[in-house]
């Protein structure tokens, strides 16, 4: 048994999936595992399919809708709290990913579930932003000094901040990729083009092209693929939505070249077309094809990502999925950091996992 029923829902977006009980069990499991239950439910609601679903699976979809609606309500509320906490910060605050889609009313927010809120501020404001957030109740749970140092020295974000009362999380970034990454991006260049969010003075989202590129680079730089399919669907929705703007595609391609993100964009577009049949306007096909890495690498990546983007559910596992995920995990580390940095880091992490007590003392 190896059936990806989940992707099929968006491969034929105008056709209601007509499934028996067993398939519904599998589809709901795949959707939960891919963090897409809310989105699957929203698709059914928006297309008017709900009443055509068997009664019992429909209850699961309705539960997914309730959860997504509530989380979105809470994210809006959290964003208000963040705005209030950072109002004394003299620099712009940029929402990234899910929170940005939601607050900017983009279709990618429909039925989306949230685990944290990602924000970006200029690098020189990171410490003052952390201070202001601390004063408003967000603290870092990362007690390990090695991990703290690792984040601050090498990463594009500080360790997650948790609100002491509400247990909500913020990921505070100064750019979208690690400074050691092969796809490093200077946060300043993103800040140059940010777009204000109406009704929220001081709050911004990335420019359309940057938003797409962030989503693409995030997807293919992640070591873990449990959000892979969701990120790809987000991308498809963003592309679909922004395509209404006349200059979107040439802007996107120019910007990818400018920021050196051609390869992640190429892979993303390839898989969006393969899985959901969504193709860029034909006049840009040649320019996009030129973004491709050399043929052997391109084919290998297409194969690996094709496997890794399947829902990580027992019904979808075939012989190679485990290997593909592992290779991509290794690749993600190689991309994020040069070997002379990543190997000591991975050894250190393995040692810390094996001897949690000793590692904590040794690092002091």
């Amino acid at each position: 048994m190896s059936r990806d029923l989940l992707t099929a829902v968006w491969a034929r977006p105008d056709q209601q999936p007509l499934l028996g009980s067993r398939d519904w069990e599998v589809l709901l499991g795949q959707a939960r595992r891919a963090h897409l239950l809310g989105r699957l439910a929203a698709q059914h609601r928006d297309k008017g399919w709900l009443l055509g679903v068997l009664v019992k699976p429909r209850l699961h979809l309705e539960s997914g809708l309730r959860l997504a609606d509530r989380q979105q309500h809470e994210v809006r509320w959290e964003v208000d709290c963040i705005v209030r906490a950072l109002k004394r910060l003299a620099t712009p605050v940029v929402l990234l990913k899910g929170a940005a889609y939601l607050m900017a009313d983009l279709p990618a927010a429909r039925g989306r579930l949230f685990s944290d809120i990602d924000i970006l501020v200029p690098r020189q404001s990171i410490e003052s932003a952390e201070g202001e957030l601390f004063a408003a109740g967000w603290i870092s749970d990362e007690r390990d000094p090695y991990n703290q140092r690792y984040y601050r020295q090498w990463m594009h974000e500080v360790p997650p901040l948790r609100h002491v009362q509400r247990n909500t999380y913020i990921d505070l970034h100064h750019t979208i990729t690690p400074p050691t990454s092969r796809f490093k991006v200077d946060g300043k260049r993103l800040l140059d083009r940010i777009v204000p969010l109406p009704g929220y003075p001081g709050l911004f989202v990335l420019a359309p092209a940057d938003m797409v590129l962030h989503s693409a680079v995030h997807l293919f730089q992640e070591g873990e693929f449990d959000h892979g399919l969701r990120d790809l669907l987000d991308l498809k929705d963003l592309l679909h939505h922004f395509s209404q703007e006349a200059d979107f595609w040439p802007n996107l391609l120019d910007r990818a070249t400018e920021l050196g993100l051609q390869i992640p964009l190429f892979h993303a577009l390839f898989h969006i077309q393969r899985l959901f049949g969504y193709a860029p306007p034909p006049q840009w096909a040649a320019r996009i094809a030129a973004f491709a890495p050399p043929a052997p690498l391109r084919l290998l990546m297409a194969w690996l990502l094709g496997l890794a983007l399947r829902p990580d559910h027992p019904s979808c596992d075939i012989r190679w999925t485990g290997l593909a995920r592992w290779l991509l995990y290794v690749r993600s580390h190689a991309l994020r950091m040069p070997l002379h940095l990543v190997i000591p880091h991975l050894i250190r992490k393995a040692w810390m996992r094996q001897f949690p007590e000793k590692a904590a003392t040794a690092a002091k």
Partner: protein
Amino acid sequence: MILSELAVASVKQQLRSDGLKLQIGPFTYRLISAIDAITEGLVKLYSDYPLAPANSFIDYPITISRGSGLHRWTRRQAIFEFDGKAVFIPLPESHAFPLLEWSMNWCVSMHAHHYLILHSAVIEREGCAVIMPAPPGSGKSTLCAGLVHRGWRLLSDELALISLTDASITPFGRPISLKNQSIDIIRDFVPGSVFSRVVHDTSKGSVALLKVPSEHLLRIHETAKPRWIIFPKYVAGSAPQLTPRSRANSMLELGRNSFNYMVLGRTGFEVLTRVVDASECFDFQYSQLEDAVKVFDDLVSQRQA
């Protein structure tokens, strides 16, 4: 067809292959496990539950797996997997059956948002339900186990499933989880009671599960209306004491004891208001089960008077 109509060897075989499809109140589970303690516990405590027909929809597929690698041979483990992912930390294999019970609760409390779900025992008589929310250690399960063997019907020992449309409570009767001294108290109080093997050293101490009387399962689809909300508290040596409690305060406490009150937002508030409006609220302190039986009987008779 009920589970006891299946030979033990077939139960075991189903658990090891496509899964045993068990129907418990409004939910259908697919249970997969190669651990013998799971077969044994199910055969003993779930013998009267219906097996789901071949093509029924499965709400929650649960796998209790053994760990991989060395753990198959030394320090054997039991791991709850849902959608192919481990949910809790692995437990020793001897805890497998209580782990299955906790997993079944987890599935419902995390996903069934078509009910308002309270962490509470619920029992019923003459169509009227008593909701008994209480923190662990308050003697809620002991009281519940005692009362369901003295004329009350078990709706649930752990989860009150409240309808979002009419605030009625749907039974989800499963074995009652008893801890430490309560196990012997109920053995003495209920002659002929059927228990699972006692599992020691769990996070809750020693745990044993008590089988639900068969006649309660025959009525597992009969809902009940909330009528009383009683916060029980076991106090050694105390006389039984039933004290009225304000509705407002009871509402707050119920909300705090809910798994998905926040998820349901305004709907949750409105449903909980209906539950509290329809109920008399009390604190109940007790030390002897016989006293408690008397107090609860009086509730019913005074209502009729």
